[in-house]
Structure formats: C-alpha cells, structure tokens
C-alpha cells in the first residue's frame, strides 16, 4: 500500500504539471458551463423537457471530463511509459509495473471526480444549480461511467505500439464522442441520422446515465445504459489484460 501511495502521489503531481490535463479536465468544462449558462440561463427550458440548461449540462459535462481523462490522458500516459521503457525499468525492481498502471487509473479517476466537483461548485455559485437525484445513486453512476470509459482507454493502451499511434487512435475515438454523444452539444437538437450515430458511441450511454440519475430517475429507468456500460467495461478490460505488453 505504501508503494502504491508513493507512486500515486508522485504521478498525481506529474498529472497536475501537465497543462493539457489540467485545462481540459478542470478548467474547460467549467468555462463551457459559464458560456452555455451565460447564454441560456438555468430557467426551465422547453428543449430539455422543462429542465434548466445548466441542470442538464453539469452531468453531461461530467461525461466530457470522463472522456478526456479516460480516452486521452490515461492511455497516452501508459503508452508513453511503455515507449520510454519506464514500465520495463519498473519491472527490474521488487514491485510490478502494474502499480504505475493502477496509480494512473486512480489519479484519472480522482481528477475526474475533482472536475465534477468544480463543475458543481461553479454551477451552484453562478447559476443556482439543482441536483434532483440520489447522491449514492449518482456516485454509482459516476463510478460505472468512469470505469467503463477508462477501460476503452486501457484497450487503446494495450495495443498501441507507439505514442504517435496512440495519439491518433485516441483522437479518432475522442472527437466524435465529444460532439455526438450529448457530452457537449445536446442530443435534443440532433436529427435522426445523428442520433443513430450517437447510439454507436459508448459515451452516449454514460451521458444518458449521468443525466438520468442527476435529474432524479432511478436505475430501472436507465437499465439499458447500465448494461451497455457494464458490457463495455467487461469486454475492454478482458481484451486489454490479454493484450497488454509491458515493453
């Protein structure tokens, strides 16, 4: 435990020293919230079935943070460590390099949570944000969404041989999810063609789950999201474990 703590503490500092991480996970979502809230306010909106724009946006942007940490930050860190032979160097110590992998998952999980808290605080202070769900359910939904999307990141890390390759794949996976899953642009404005594309993107189910629970639905109302996310989590994790190379 002490070893994991030591690695995680140092890796957390390294995460915070990386500008892209801090900006896209901690600053950008709140900026987006300030802009959207500034334009539309948080009054009941017809487009969102009578919910306020900010109330709907906070859980959606949480999914955005999950995606940036899970699809970009996590796999790129892991592939970078493999390419730099850091994983191999750790193999030549009494600890297993799986510790650094675990620490990366923990840090990105933690920073995703911090990102969500910042969103919440900004929403509360500036726009009178309402949380209509159950806190425990929300936590479970958050954890499932995060682990499920992270497992896709680990899948990328397991087969990408180089940083270049991983960066390309991560971008290809990340950008459609950014715009076509409801994480930034609401699906409510999308025509059917786009909605069909969104159904093929895993993050859509995370957005729907987080939004549903946030607005007061129970797990039985979002059962489909849960099954899809659990399925992705299991399949990607299994494949990555089978595929993963330390060097």
């Amino acid at each position, binding site marked *: 435990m002490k070893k994991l703590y030591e690695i995680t503490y140092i890796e957390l500092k390294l995460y915070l020293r990386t500008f892209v991480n801090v900006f896209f996970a901690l600053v950008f979502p709140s900026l987006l919230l300030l802009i959207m809230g500034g334009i539309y306010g948080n009054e009941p909106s017809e487009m969102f079935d009578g919910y306020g724009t900010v109330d709907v946006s906070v859980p959606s942007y949480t999914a955005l943070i999950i995606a940036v940490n899970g699809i970009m930050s996590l796999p790129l860190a892991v592939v*970078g460590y493999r390419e730099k032979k850091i994983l191999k160097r750790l193999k030549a110590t009494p600890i297993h390099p799986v510790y650094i992998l675990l620490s990366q998952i923990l840090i990105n999980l933690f920073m995703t949570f911090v990102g969500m808290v910042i969103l919440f605080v900004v929403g509360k202070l500036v726009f009178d944000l309402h949380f209509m769900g159950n806190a425990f359910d929300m936590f479970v939904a958050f954890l499932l969404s995060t682990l499920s999307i992270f497992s896709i990141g680990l899948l990328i890390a397991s087969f990408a041989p180089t940083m270049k390759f991983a960066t390309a794949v991560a971008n290809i996976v990340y950008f459609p999810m950014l715009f076509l899953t409801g994480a930034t642009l609401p699906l409510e404005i999308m025509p059917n063609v786009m909605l069909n594309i969104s159904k093929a993107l895993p993050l859509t189910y995370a957005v729907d789950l987080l939004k549903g629970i946030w607005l007061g639905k129970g797990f039985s109302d979002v059962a489909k999201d849960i099954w899809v996310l659990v399925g992705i989590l299991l399949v990607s994790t299994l494949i990555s474990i089978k595929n993963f190379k330390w060097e």
Partner: protein
Amino acid sequence: MIIEVNDLVVEYKGVRAVDHVSFSVKEGEIFGMIGPNGAGKTTTIECIEGLRDHYSGSIRVLGLDPKTERKRLYDLIGVQLQETSYQDNIKVWEICKMFSSFYANPLPYEMLLEKFGIADKINSYVSKLSGGQRQRLAIVLALIANPQIIFLDELSTGLDPQARRSMWDLIKELQKNGKTVYMTTHFMEEAEYLCDRIAIMNRGKVVAVDTVENLIRMFDLEDRVIFRVSDINLAELERVESVTHVEQKGSEICARGKGANLVHNVVSYLNDRQIAYSGLKVIQPTLEDVFLKITGMKWEETE
C-alpha cells in the same frame, strides 16, 4: 561464482539471438561483455536480470533463478537499462523517492546523489539533466537497493569523452565498495581500462572470456614497430630476426613481429646499416586488435 550462465539459448522470430552461451562472473570483479551491435549482449544481460522469460539453459544469480525468484533477486541487484528515460516533468528527488519506496531497506538517496556529484540537481527536472548527469542518476537509482551486483548496459554510450572518463572512476569506486559490476559496452578502451575479465560476444556466441592480457596472449597477436626513413631495403628488414612482416605507407615503415627482442633487433639493424630514422614508436596489441581478429570486421563497421 556470483553469476552462472549455462548453455543459454534465446530465439525470437526464428532468429537465434543467443546461441549456447556459458560463462560465469566472480564476486567483486568488473566483468565486461563486448561485441558489435546485434551480437546478443543486451539479450544476454536482460536474461540475467530477469527481464526475459523465453530462453533455455540455466542462469543463477546469487544462487537465485531470475525466471522464478525475480522478486528476491531485485532486492539484491541494481539495474541500469539501455535507453531508459523517465516521466515527463519528474524531478530528481521525486524519482529517487519513488524508487526508494520499492525497497525494504533503501540507501538514503541524498547520500548517493552527493556521492555521484549531482546533489545540487536534486530539485531539477530529470529532463533538464545532461547526458552524463542522467547516467549518474541511472546508477543512483540502481544503487538505492544497496545491491551486491550492479548491471550497466551501454552506460557510456552517447556521453562525451570527459563525462565517460569520470563515469569510469565512479565504476571503479563501486568495485572498491565491494560491488560486483557486470557491464556491456562497445568501447574497447573502456573495457580495457575497467574490466577485470572480458567476454567477447559475436553473432550470439561468446567467443572468449578472459583478462585483457590473456586474451591478447591467447590470440597470439604481434607487436608493431613503426618509424620513418627516407630509404630502406624492405626485403632485408623482413629477414631481421623476430620480424615476420613489413609494410610501407609513404615514408612510414611498419615492422610486425613477436618476441621480447623485436624492438632491439629492428633498431640494431637500422644502426648497423646507418639508416637515419625518426618517429619510432612501438605499438602493442590491444583489446581492439583481439576484437577485430575475432569478429573479422574493421572497427568502423561496429558503430
């Protein structure tokens, strides 16, 4: 024997990278493995370090099997890998602290940094260190466990001559402190200066293992007497006792031969014939000559 390698064979993708290799390393010595790139040096060292599983033959390091007793082994050996870099934005003390946490009884890294002359870099980013400083850090990290054996793979590659020299002193110092050092290099003078015994590896095989002196003797190499003259009868010079072969490059004459009297005989001959000569030098065979003879290549080809 602190390391024993018996009949090691490594194949990947149908190519035999290491071909029935056996040798052993004595406690307290600096053992060097030299050979051209692709000879199998790194593959061999990585098997011994427990970083590879797919090999046949047996390896014992401090009595442990690196394949199955890896965890215990890593408390006893320190490793520097070829071409490792570190995390972006990590500072010297952070990487040291991280490595310290892996071991039950780590040496204080502040002391090690001091000893290796990079104590003033403790708060620097690793990425800002010079090549020489980074290699010193690699040794510090390898020493945190206070290991009995330290493995150095191409430690001085990419360093400028001055940094390389000071690295040599540090390695000698390790030996003085009772460590066994196993190193690979492709710098002959480095191996000659540092190593008590040297294994020469070529195309996956260990061709010879011995001290530099014995290797040179074993391969029966000739001394060279070189001097400048304006005019000389080469055929006559070749008949001088102990001279076996004479060649001329411009005004420079090179007489090859063996035996303690070679120089004396050549100089006597020149004096007897009253031939004026200048720039006399005697070149004794070096490890490089042994290496060239074994690998059958010109030195420039090995870089």
